[in-house]
């Protein structure tokens, strides 16, 4: 009788695990990317086009840049699409990624309350704007999550010679969208990528107070996880995705993507890199 019970139980587990069964790995590409990329709606627009053409399914895992690179390092994803130049360089140099391909860029903007208590609107450069923020001790919400935006923000503080510490500097540890909402609710400043800003500005009580400085340039790179490190990653899929992104169609579609009538991303694939992708 116990045998019967055991049999029942095992067949139940078996049948349900069939339901939950693993997908065909070679047709699934796991892409780790940043929340800002995902939240902008760009991938939602691009990936169905790629999936239809290639037959692959792309599973997007949207996290901060630090975490995305970490997943690539551990071989838990096949390809990463991030925007943190120096971390990307390190990732490739240490042999976790194959090669970094430029895909596109957008830029960061400094946003804050309309009345601009720190007076950054009239700053001539990003350095000066951040210096004024530090001097005015105006409330600033930082991502504080090791994301690309966070890394960029810290670099900007450093360049401005400000040590961001104290009650005016709040580390949220959250995604871009959430941080924008917090800044809006608190009447605080924050640094955001333009994509997320355009997607969300309608619901926010914030204004762009500084933009256009070359230091705020935000380039995206795409890197396949090195199959020599992790033989079980879907390297073929990763290459197919990269090829599409930096190829003619992907680049055109990136340029065509509009939010609220505005172009969010400027494609910038380098023709010299394309040679590396020839099958």
């Amino acid at each position, binding site marked *: 009788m116990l045998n019967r019970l055991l049999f029942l139980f095992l067949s*139940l587990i078996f049948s349900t695990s069939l339901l*939950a069964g693993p997908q065909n790995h070679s047709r699934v590409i796991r892409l780790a990317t940043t929340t800002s990329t995902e939240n902008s709606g760009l991938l939602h627009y691009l990936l169905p086009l790629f999936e239809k053409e290639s037959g692959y399914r792309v599973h997007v*895992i949207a996290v901060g840049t630090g975490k995305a690179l970490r997943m690539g390092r551990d071989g838990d994803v096949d390809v990463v699409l991030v925007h943190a130049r120096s971390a990307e360089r390190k990732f490739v140099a240490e042999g976790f990624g194959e090669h970094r391909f430029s895909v596109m860029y957008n830029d960061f903007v400094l946003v804050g309350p309309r009345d601009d208590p720190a007076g950054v609107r009239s700053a001539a450069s990003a350095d000066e704007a951040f210096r004024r923020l530090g001097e005015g001790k105006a409330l600033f919400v930082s991502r504080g999550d090791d994301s690309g935006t966070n890394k960029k923000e810290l670099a900007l503080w450093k360049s401005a010679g400000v040590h961001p510490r104290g009650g005016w500097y709040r580390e949220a540890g959250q995604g871009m969208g959430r941080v924008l909402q917090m800044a809006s609710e608190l009447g605080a400043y924050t640094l955001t990528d333009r994509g997320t800003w355009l997607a969300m500005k309608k619901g926010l009580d914030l204004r762009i107070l500084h933009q256009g400085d070359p230091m705020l340039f935000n380039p995206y790179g795409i890197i396949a996880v090195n199959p020599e490190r992790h033989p079980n990653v879907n390297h073929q899929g990763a290459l197919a995705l990269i090829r599409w992104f930096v190829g003619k169609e992907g680049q055109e579609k990136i340029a065509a993507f509009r939010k609220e009538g505005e172009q969010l991303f400027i494609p910038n694939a380098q023709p010299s890199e394309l040679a590396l992708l020839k099958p």
Partner: protein
Amino acid sequence: MTLWEATDHAMRLLLGGDESLWRIIGISFKVSGIAILMATPPAVLTAFALAWLRFPGRRLLISLFSTLLSVPAVVVGLTLYLLLSNQGPLGDWRLLFTQSAMVAGQVVLAFPILVAMGHAALQSVDQRAWETARTLGASFFKAFLLVLRESRFGLLAALLAAYGRIIAEVGASMMLGGNILDYTRNIPTAIALETSKGEFAQGIALGVVLLLLASTLNGLLHYVQGKGGVSTP
């Protein structure tokens, strides 16, 4: 967007049969349903063994399961993440960021609830129930089923409580599933994401579904526990 506008929009999404919304709901029910189906049989067997059999280490197991009850979902998520990660011991299974990984996390979360509440339910069954069944010539299995039947309301309450926990759980699902659209994005992770994006309408719509589900489960739980009260001799 005001709360009223968001709610209004949410209702229109729900009632209008917004496809992506219902797909998220479907994933939630599928994953949690499979998890509860997989967790229940071994949990009931464990609870039965703890309540009705005497073996060394029994007391230790009982206190272990009640400790596991209070382990936060994110800790379960993190532990399984480290196990299932490509760098972890089970990395070769390639389960991270799949529905199977979410199911595994929810099974681990549901199991101690099922065991602890199931144990309480089975233990409250009169010793004479088992003896009467056996002395009437019932096999071990038939007597086992009888004891389950005698405690069916308590067991059902355990099932509902466990299901209620896993379907609303966000930490482990987020970590193990990766919140992948149309694959591992379930109700709680979608709410977390949508609110972070400021898409309150979808967050509210999904919240309403969870709320309805929670109150249904709660109502059932009360009904079942009321029944259980009547049936004690």
